[in-house]
């Protein structure tokens, strides 16, 4: 494995759900890569497939869903078709996930100590004393005061923000190469959110951990990520460096999303709104999925747009990208 290879490279990933009513293409031809110490923001509204993308990487997609195509290269190894045994050695060890609701990660009837030591012991041959020491250090690292005492506490004895820190501490335990964070701050207050973002950023810088930060909130990504992928109806519609995409979005959906953020607009004046709502993924009509809400849509959009590169460092899935010269 070359040292320049990205930590994770996803190519043409397809995860489909085979339901009685039809095939739901939750993730359709998604490609991106994350380097060491890089934070990738994966942005989209509910139902856009961002969480399923995260689950696919970890091999956590349950029936009737299945990864039906594409490559997931982790440190050069294709794990899209890896067996369960291999995934178990990676999951929680080299790749960790943080969920929106920390109670999804934490077992309510076990002490934090028990859960954290279990994570260490499952992957490393160390004695219990060392495992406890690691757990203690991880809690301290995410800014939990008096970690020695807090180790013996149960999850319900922590506040929401502290619980999320515990979940992050568990993700850190085995010093993973990649962390997938699925809306980890959505349920938290701004001051607590800032504390969590601070820890995430520090981690990335100091340990070189690659991170995928899944969120619906462009503003969170703006301060945190290095690059961003915008998802719509299971596909990436725009990808690029964070400043570039936020300052000069070219896809009509990205433009609409940015335009509808309240703080960008003059007070009291109606916000720009994207008409209609996100389409149901079941039996999505052919062509561009955004067609029916798009101000630029025309006959060409009846065909499905491929990912094109209008200029260096940007990918967009649109026949009518908004380019400065042509505006």
């Amino acid at each position, binding site marked *: 494995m070359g040292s320049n290879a990205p930590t994770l490279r996803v190519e043409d990933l397809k995860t489909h759900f085979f339901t009685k009513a039809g095939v739901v293409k939750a993730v359709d031809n998604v490609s991106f890569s994350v380097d060491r110490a890089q934070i990738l923001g994966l942005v989209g509204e509910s139902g856009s497939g961002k969480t399923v993308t995260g689950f696919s990487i970890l091999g956590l997609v349950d029936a009737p869903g299945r990864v039906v195509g594409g490559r997931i290269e982790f440190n050069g190894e294709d794990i899209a078709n890896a067996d369960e045994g291999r995934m178990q050695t990676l999951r929680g060890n080299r790749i960790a996930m943080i969920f929106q609701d920390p109670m999804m990660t934490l077992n309510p009837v076990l002490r934090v100590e028990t859960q954290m030591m279990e994570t260490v012991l499952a992957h490393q041959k160390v004695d219990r004393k060392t495992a406890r020491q690691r757990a203690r250090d991880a809690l301290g690292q995410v800014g939990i005061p008096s970690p020695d005492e807090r180790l013996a506490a149960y999850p319900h004895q922590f506040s929401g*923000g502290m619980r999320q820190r515990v979940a992050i501490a568990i993700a850190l335990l085995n010093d993973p190469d990649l962390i997938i964070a699925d809306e980890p701050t959505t349920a938290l207050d701004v*001051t607590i959110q800032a504390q969590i973002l601070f820890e995430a950023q520090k981690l990335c810088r100091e340990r070189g951990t690659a991170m995928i930060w899944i969120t619906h909130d462009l503003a969170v990504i703006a*301060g945190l990520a290095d690059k961003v992928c915008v998802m719509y109806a299971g596909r990436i519609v725009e990808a690029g460096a*964070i400043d570039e995409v936020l300052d000069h979005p070219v896809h009509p959906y990205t433009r609409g999303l940015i335009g*509808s*953020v309240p703080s960008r607009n003059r007070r009291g004046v109606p916000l720009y709104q994207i008409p209609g*709502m996100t389409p149901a993924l079941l039996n999505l009509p052919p062509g561009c999925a955004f067609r029916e809400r798009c101000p630029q849509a025309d006959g060409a959009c009846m065909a499905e747009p491929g990912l094109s590169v209008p200029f260096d460092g940007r990918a967009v899935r649109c026949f009518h990208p908004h380019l400065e010269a042509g505006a």
Partner: protein
Amino acid sequence: MSLPATQGAPNGALMELHGLSKRFVKTLDLAGKLASKLGSSIREETVYALDGVNMTVAKGEVVGLVGESGCGKSTLGRIVAGILEPTEGQMYYEGRHVATLEPAEAKAVALKVQMIFQDPFASLNPRMRVRDIVGEAPLVHGLVSSDEFEGYVDDVLGRCGLDASYKRRYPHQFSGGQRQRIGIARALAVRPDFIVCDEAVAALDVSIQAQILNLFIKLREELGLTYLFISHDLGVVEHISDRVYIMYLGRIVETAPTEDLFAAPNHPYTKALLREVPRLETRHSKFLPIEGEIPSPLEPPRGCHFHPRCPHATARCREEVPVLREIAPGRESACHLNDEA
């Protein structure tokens, strides 16, 4: 005004709160009482949800109320909407002391103040058709006769951007944004003047949130509504409000016209909040969070509630409660630091 002006209620204020407090007490059961008699440390637990809140909302104004979870903003909203009774303090509606009104008048006031809730999935009865959810209250209160009923429901739904032909459907057949519109239609159906929106857009996607915010702005213009807009999202509050109240652990710490507050916050807590709001404009930011969390309202700290997290706290802040004082025309802040400057 139908009643002589009450002391402390200036003209023009639609809603006025004076020294409003709310405490939730968890009383001991028999076993607990016995145990406490026998010398156990079990005591009644009191949650200090609101502590001496003063607030004025002028007619036609949109007032934002911002705070972190557990600061008491929803409790305040519920008291204003008449769902909860305050423990202490007075509430005036159009200059009339609400607690002393005759039953008929009290009912009229209750109808004039309506509430829209956060969760459009939990706040609609899943077993009622949209037509009944929206139309039940005006029918019961005699605002419409049964002849006018269908037309009235169609009209209210249309105003909220819903297709009247869907009115025989149940709530589960609608998306989140549409359900929130149903909740808004239900509130509007009794022709209120004052609407309390408790995190009304928090559960919605960005593109849907923009649609609902636009609906709020449109309805305000068309119907001359007054809003108390409760939210933890400063971006949303900045966009829609004329004036903002910042709340911390049951107390108002600062209030100012929206532009002034966002341009130059005064209270250390407001400053911290504004600094930490993620914005599209701030890239690759170095997050420098304020330490700690909101303390438990079971045992609020002495003195200024914010002092354990405040970088400027002095000995005085630990002992003496700062009062909300005017620091500039239209601006009030509760911080001892303002005395020294």
